[in-house]
C-alpha cells in the first residue's frame, strides 16, 4: 500500500466517544488538561460532547459530570491551534443545542444519524451550513449494515443538505478493510470532489488501524481515532498507533508523534476506569455488529439479572438494534431472565 505524500486530518474522540467508558464522568478540569496537551501535540481537531452527543444527558444514556455547555466553553477558550467539534444526534439533540455549541466556539458540528436515516438530519445540516465558516459534517453510523450503493445515496443526501464533509462510521467495529475500501471508494468517486470524506473506526475486531489505512487509500482524508483508544467498546482507532504508522508510511498528519504518545500514556491511560481492550464482550460487539456504546449497559444488565452479557449482545445484534436503543437492553435482559426462570 503506497500512501506516501497523502495529507489527512486526524480527529481525536477521547473527550466524546471516550465519555462512554467513563460513563460520562470526565470532569471539566480533566477535559481542559487533556485538550491543552492535545493542542500542544498538534492534534488539529478534537471532539468534546456527551458520549451520545449534544443533549445526551439522560437516564437512558447517563447523566454527565458537567453540561455540554460547560465542557465546550471551558475547552474552546483554552485552544490555541486545535479546533473543537461537537456531535449531534437528531432525535436526541436539537438545533437549539447546535446554536449553543456554536456560541461556545466550536469550529465543527457533526450531525449523526443511522446509516439509512440521513433525511432526519436535514433540519440540522441545513442550519449548520448557514453559519459562516462552520465546518459541517454528516456522520452515518452503523455503516456496515448497508452496502456501498445504498450508503452512497444517504451520503449524497447529507451532501445536499449542506455537509462539506461526510463520514462513514463503523460504530460496531464490524467492518473489515475490504468493507471500508468498497464504501469509501464508491463515495469518493461519486461525491463532489470538494466534499471531504471521513472514516470513524472502532477497534472491536482490532481493525481500527487497518480500516483507517484502507479508508485513506480509497480516498478518505479525515480519520477519527482516540489517544490510547479511549472510546466505546474496545475503543476507537488508537490514535498514537495510527500516527506512528502514518509516519512510517509517509502520510502527513502534522501531529507530533512523541507528544501524542505522551498524552496517551500520561493523561489518558491513568483516566481509564478499566482497561480499554478487546475483551470477550467488546469482541462480541464487533463480531455480531452491535453499537459499541451498548457494552457497559449489557454488562450492567447481565450482572443485575444474572445473565451472560455476550448472550445479550448477540441478541441485540440479531434484532438489528441501532444506535440510541440503550433502553432496549434492560427490557431485553428482563425478557431473557423471564424465559430462563420459566
Amino acid at each position, binding site marked *: 500500500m503506497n500512501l506516501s505524500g497523502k495529507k489527512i486530518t486526524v480527529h481525536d474522540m477521547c473527550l466524546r466517544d471516550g465519555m462512554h467508558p467513563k460513563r460520562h464522568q470526565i470532569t471539566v478540569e480533566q477535559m481542559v488538561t487533556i485538550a491543552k496537551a492535545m493542542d500542544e501535540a498538534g492534534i488539529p481537531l478534537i471532539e468534546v460532547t456527551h458520549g451520545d452527543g449534544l443533549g445526551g444527558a*439522560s*437516564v*437512558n444514556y447517563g447523566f454527565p459530570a458537567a453540561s455540554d455547555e460547560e465542557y465546550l466553553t471551558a475547552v474552546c477558550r483554552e485552544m490555541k491551534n486545535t479546533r473543537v467539534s461537537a456531535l449531534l444526534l*437528531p*432525535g*436526541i439533540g*436539537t*438545533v*437549539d443545542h447546535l446554536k449553543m455549541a456554536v456560541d461556545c466556539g466550536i469550529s465543527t458540528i457533526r450531525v449523526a444519524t*443511522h446509516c*439509512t*436515516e440521513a*433525511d*432526519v438530519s*436535514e*433540519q*440540522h445540516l441545513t442550519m449548520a451550513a448557514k453559519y459562516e465558516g462552520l465546518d459541517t459534517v454528516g456522520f452515518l453510523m452503523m455503516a456496515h449494515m448497508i452496502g456501498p450503493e445504498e450508503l452512497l445515496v444517504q451520503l449524497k443526501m447529507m451532501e445536499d443538505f449542506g455537509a462539506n464533509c461526510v463520514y462513514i462510521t463503523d460504530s460496531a467495529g464490524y467492518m473489515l478493510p475490504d468493507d471500508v475500501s468498497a464504501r469509501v471508494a464508491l463515495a469518493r468517486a461519486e461525491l463532489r470532489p470538494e466534499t471531504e470524506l471521513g472514516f470513524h473506526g472502532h477497534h472491536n475486531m482490532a481493525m481500527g488501524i487497518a480500516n483507517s489505512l484502507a479508508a485513506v487509500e480509497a480516498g478518505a482524508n479525515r480519520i477519527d481515532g482516540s489517544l490510547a483508544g479511549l472510546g466505546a467498546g474496545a475503543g476507537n482507532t488508537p490514535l498514537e498507533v495510527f500516527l506512528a504508522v502514518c509516519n512510517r508510511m509517509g502520510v502527513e498528519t502534522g501531529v507530533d508523534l512523541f507528544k501524542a504518545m505522551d498524552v496517551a500514556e500520561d493523561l489518558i491511560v491513568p483516566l481509564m476506569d478499566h482497561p480499554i481492550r478487546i475483551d470477550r464482550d467488546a469482541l462480541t460487539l464487533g463480531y455480531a455488529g452491535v453499537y459499541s456504546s451498548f457494552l457497559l449497559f449489557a454488562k450492567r444488565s447481565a450482572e443485575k439479572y444474572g445473565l451472560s452479557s455476550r448472550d445479550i449482545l448477540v441478541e441485540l445484534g440479531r*434484532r*438489528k*438494534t*441501532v*444506535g*440510541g*436503543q440503550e*433502553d*432496549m437492553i*434492560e*427490557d431485553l435482559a*428482563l*425478557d431473557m431472565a423471564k424465559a430462563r426462570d420459566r
Partner: protein
Amino acid sequence: MSKKVKAAIIGPGNIGTDLLMKAMRSEWIEPVWMVGVVPDSPGLARAAEAGLKTTAEGVDGMLPTMRADGVQICFDATSAYVHAENSRKVNEQGAVMIDLTPAAIGPFCVPPVNLAQAVDARAMNVNMVTCGGQATIPMVAAVSRVQPVTYAEIVATVSSKSAGPGTRKNIDEFTRTTASGIEKVGGAKSGKAIIVINPAEPPLIMRDTIHCLTAEDPDQAAITSSVHAMIAEVQKYVPGYILKNGPVFDGKRVSIYMEVEGLGDFLPKYAGNLDIMTAAGLRTAEMYAQEILAGNFVPTAA
C-alpha cells in the same frame, strides 16, 4: 342509529386515511369531507369512494360549503407548517379543530389523562401532542398521580417505514413538543423526549420506554397498580397498548417498557405510533361530539 356530528379530515395521507376508517365506525362522528392538495391523490380517491365530499384545493376548497354541510369538527393530519392557517380558517366557520400535527397551538390532549378537562375548557383547537407523547404521557401521569415526579424521560423507537416525511423534516418538533407534553399533561417537573428510528425488516412494533425519577422513594405497590389501571384506560381505544416489562424500580428511578401495536386499519399493525395518534384524535372528537349532541357545547367562531 343516533345522530352524529359531521366531521372533515384535512390530509388524505396515511394518517388521514386510517383516521377515516376508524371514524366510519364511530357512533358519534360522521366523516363528510376529505381535504387534500394533490388532485390525483389515492387518499382523496379512497375517500370519494367511501362517499365523502373531496377537494384538492386545500381547506379553501371546503370553506364555502362546510357550514352548510354541517361540519362541526375538523381533524388536521397535514403538517405543523400549515396547521395554524388551516385552524384559523375552519374555526371561523364554527368548527372545532383537532390537531394531529405537532404544531401545538392549542392545549394538549392525551385522552386518558386530560380529555375531560380539554373538552370542559371548550377549546376550539386541541393538540394531540405527538405519537410518542400519546404512547408515553399516560405512563408519566400514572406515576405522577401517585407521587411527585421531578423528571420524566421517554424513548420512543419507531420503525423506519412508519416515520413519515413530516416527522423526518422536523424531528426537533417531536422532541420539543413531547417534552412539553410530559411536563404539562404528564405532570413531571421536567421532561425529556428521545426518538429513535430503526429500519429493521420486518419492521419493529413501536416501543416506548418511560423513565420517571420520583422526588421521594417510589411507593412500588401504588405505582404498579396505577400503571396497570392507566394501561387499561389506553387499551379502551388502542387494544395493542401492552406492558412488556416493569415497572422496574431502581432507587428513585421507575422504568416502564411498553409496546404499541396498531389495529391495522389502513396503517400496518407495527405502526402503533400512528395508530395511537388517530385513535386518540378520534376519541377526543367523540367526546366533543357527545357534548355537542347533548347541547352542552356549540362550537362558534372566536
